[in-house]
């Protein structure tokens, strides 16, 4: 396998957080369809659960949307009760997509030209 480069997930994908009650969903959308298999292989339920360990998710589910080159993560009980209960200033957890997008991933060097943003 060719040498890879380690980059933050936001170079390969973008996303948005939504909330319902004490549950957060975070989309992870590949900037290019060719980057989708990398997300599929590396941004797994286990990896995401570990990345959010301080939020003690009761469950992390990943849904795959290959037509959109996107993943949808659903994290249960990570919002300290949600919009009416949490003490966080960001009771909705709006910022959580950016926490996930900071995850380091390894990209095959051949795909580097597809990455977004300044290298």
């Amino acid at each position, binding site marked *: 396998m060719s040498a890879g480069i380690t980059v933050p997930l936001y170079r390969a994908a973008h996303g948005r957080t939504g909330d319902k009650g004490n549950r957060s969903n975070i989309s992870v959308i590949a900037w290019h369809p060719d980057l989708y298999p990398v997300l599929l292989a590396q941004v797994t339920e286990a990896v995401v659960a570990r990345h959010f360990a301080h939020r003690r998710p009761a469950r992390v589910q990943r849904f795959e*949307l290959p037509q959109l080159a996107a993943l949808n993560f659903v994290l249960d009980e990570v919002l300290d009760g949600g919009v009416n209960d949490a003490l966080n200033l960001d009771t909705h957890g709006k910022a959580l997509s950016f926490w996930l997008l900071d995850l380091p991933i390894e990209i095959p060097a051949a795909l580097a030209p597809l990455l977004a943003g300044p290298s």
Partner: protein
Amino acid sequence: MTPSPPSPLLIGCAAGFSGDRVDAAGPVVDTLIARGGPAFLIFETLAERTLALAQLRRRADPDAGFEPLLDDMLRPVLARCLAHKIRIVSNFGAANPLAAARHIQAMAAGMGLPAPRIAVVAGDDLSGAQHEPLLRAQLGAAMDGIRKVSANAYIGAEAIAAALDAGAQIVVAGRVADPSLTVGPAMSHFGWRADDWDRLARATMAGHLLECGAQVCGGYFADPGYKEVPDLHAVGYPIAEIDSDGHCVIGKAARTGGVVSLAGVKEQLLYEVHDPAAYLTPDVVADISAAQLSQAGPDRVALSGVRGHARPASLKVNVCHEGGWLAEGEISYAGPRAEARARLAAEVLRRRLPGLALRVDLIGALSIMGDDAGRLLAHTPAGDARDVRLRVAATHSDRAQAERLPREVTALYCCGPAGGGGVRTSLTPRLNTLSCLVPREAVPLRFEMLEGVQ
């Protein structure tokens, strides 16, 4: 030779939440008029918390309890909508749709307009004593001892469609599910049955894309260097073109900022979605697991591949109840060792406030990414941030206990670490939420035309 397809239905959305911009509707209405053809304008102004706040306002004033910005949102476009047969559908009735309808009626009269036919959708409000057994049957002991503020079922599109079929020019609802504001007009316009699952699902996802207003037009998207949005200060609001099968193209109001792009529409399509194969609404279970998006032109994105399944047998109900008191306090430290001084101040507050579970934020070092229990903060080594605002928060059922927090934060002026300034404190009543499902048959829905006034 086949007849040319009928012109698509246009549905513009001019609000995505309570408190949205009141100058949004003008360009949407201008665009709907310029394009001609059948058109609706919707305003989505309710969130999980909004209704309970509206119910509290109604308690204080029987003529209040609808969207506080209703007048500001509607007045600039009401005359043009009525003149050009653009019908208006909204949940801005909140906790008091009848009062909202009367307000609109008076507004139209005051503007010298012919009296519009206004329908009021009712049945979602389950806060009355007669509904107590229904809620208790679902929530059981969780209802014991709570002080209920509001209880509303998320209702669907059928009552809206029926009101439109009956000739309503304006439909005022309360807790209608957000996408149903789009499904109702589409059902009525195209004459779809309430079990036409594929078409209802497609219109539901069109409504889902519209329901947050600017969020599908480049709002809530910009990230400099990664996601550029032109003229974000003037971001436009969306218009969906829906065909007779429910397929849609999302565009936006002419001569506005923002962008309707594949990336932005993908984000909004998945916003607040859990299982993409089962997006539950009162109208249908929508399946977007095989949905496709394509750029159909500048600022135009087409959605296809949405399927539908039979609607759920139950409706979701949110019960809001009084939740004690939220106490918050903030103080800033800046310059050399600012973070260390802020951390010391937090420690002082912890020692002074036994019995209150404090959340601590070091704004400028680590705040909203952290959890209420402080696990992330505890595992983050102290840094050297030089401009830190300490924020602490706690909740308590007893107001006197909660009040200890703002007093101790204020006391940091003289008794805390060096150089603290800019104290702000607040004590606010809280609302908590319980959710349950109730059988659909237990929530009879209806609409009523507002009687005309002379």
